[in-house]
């Protein structure tokens, strides 16, 4: 457990009162549930970063997760495709049930899981390869695709990520020659290429300018017709703009979860209200 995290937790408790959520403030979704999280906990050594989270991710909807730095929202979302398996000190308990399967269980096929649950990170991280190869790479790892299938999938993915028209004449150029916003859409296209069911986005716009951000937000709106999206964001207005459900995290707890309009118009928990109205920051 790091000292800054201790200080933050202590200060958050001082300002916001007792930790923990009132179960009544974690609302059920009314849409079909794509992923159900039950009593999820994440530890790094002795430090518990995520505490007893239970919530539902609605299918083909955008779920936004917000909260101050260090609240655990990124840790939570990374648990949903088993990213913590790469951290030796990390330990995860509880359930994250994707279409009836608990993906937290040992023995779950991680390659298959990450194909079903894609991830887009804060900073665009294209491979130092051509635009085409960035998309084709996952398909080649997957295997079993003909050259024409790969070409079709590259085009379909780039179109889905609203990037095709901008890059179709330079597919063999290096991905690193693209702008930051284009690189991020390329990373989204790369995630879409393996046809995931759920797309996790960890602050996908934090390194982008307002125009590139707008394009990603419009893209998220279009993608939700086919994908279930979970987005972690620092930007409260972005959460309000793009999502249908919003969760507020604080010191590893899910304080409130419900329809985005309700969270931003009349949140139930005073801590949520204090956070979104800037009375705590």
């Amino acid at each position, binding site marked *: 457990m790091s000292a800054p995290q201790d200080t933050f937790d202590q200060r958050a408790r001082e300002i916001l009162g007792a930790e923990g959520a009132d179960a009544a403030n974690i609302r059920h979704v009314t849409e079909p549930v794509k992923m159900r999280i039950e009593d999820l906990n994440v530890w790094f050594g002795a430090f518990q970063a995520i505490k007893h989270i239970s919530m539902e991710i609605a299918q083909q909807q955008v779920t936004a997760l917000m909260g101050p730095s260090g609240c655990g929202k990124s840790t939570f979302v990374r648990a949903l495709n088993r990213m913590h398996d790469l951290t030796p000190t990390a330990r995860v308990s509880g359930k994250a049930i994707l279409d009836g399967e608990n993906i937290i269980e040992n023995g779950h096929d991680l390659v298959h899981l990450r194909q079903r649950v894609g991830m887009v990170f804060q900073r665009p991280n294209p491979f130092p390869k051509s635009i085409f190869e960035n998309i084709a790479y996952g398909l080649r790892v997957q295997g079993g695709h003909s050259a024409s299938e790969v070409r079709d999938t590259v085009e379909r993915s780039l179109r889905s990520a609203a990037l095709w028209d901008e890059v179709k004449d330079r597919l063999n150029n290096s991905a690193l020659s693209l702008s930051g916003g284009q690189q991020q859409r390329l990373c989204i296209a790369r995630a879409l290429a393996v046809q995931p069911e759920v797309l996790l986005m960890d602050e996908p716009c934090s390194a982008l300018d307002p125009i590139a951000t707008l394009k990603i937000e419009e893209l998220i709106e279009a993608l939700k017709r086919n994908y279930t999206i979970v987005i972690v964001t620092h930007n409260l207005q972005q959460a309000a703009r793009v999502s249908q459900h919003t969760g507020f995290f604080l010191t590893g707890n899910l304080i409130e979860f419900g329809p985005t309009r309700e969270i931003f*118009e*009349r949140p139930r928990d005073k801590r949520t209200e204090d956070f979104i*109205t800037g009375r705590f920051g």
Partner: protein
Amino acid sequence: MARQTFHQELREIEEAVIQLASLVESEIVRAVQALTQRNGALAQEVIASDSEVNGLQLSIRSRCIALMALQAPVARDLRELVTVQLVINELERMGDHGVGIAKQALTLLQYEPLPMTTQLTEIGALVRQQVRQGIEAFVDINVQEARTVSEKDDEIDHRYKSFVSQLASLLSSNSMVAQQATSLLFAAHDLERIGDRVTNICEDIIYMVTGELEELN
């Protein structure tokens, strides 16, 4: 870092709303006085003072629009800014009703007084109390107080109907008083509408506190 500048501006807007409410209350009280005491100078004063009410309402509205555009308020801040804009509209219209009463006061000066002005004074007192308590409920952010105030509008409605019925009886027996009776009717109607606007403010208070859109009375 909390949003101190934004919340300070919000507090200043609240103070301006209270100032507007106080101007409007005074306008209504003086308009009723001008009518019942046949004071033309006071009626002119009320009519002239309405521009101050209008100016303050526009200034508050402009500050609300700026905060909404620049600060992207949410939750209770959003509800408060929405409510403030609804409340100042009601207050501005209440001021217009005050002007309406003052204009009738000027018209009535040209005629012999009718004996029914006492009842108008009573309705005026009830309306003044209603305005005062409605504003107190807004300042106190008190839903219960808002509900109680809105219920009292029934008494104003009841008195208004009784007053109108008496005016109708008077008119049927003496058509010579048609102009005075019509002026008193307009003035009474202005008072009754002020009561209705207080009820609207009470509904706005409930939205501000609970986020629920509710129809009272």
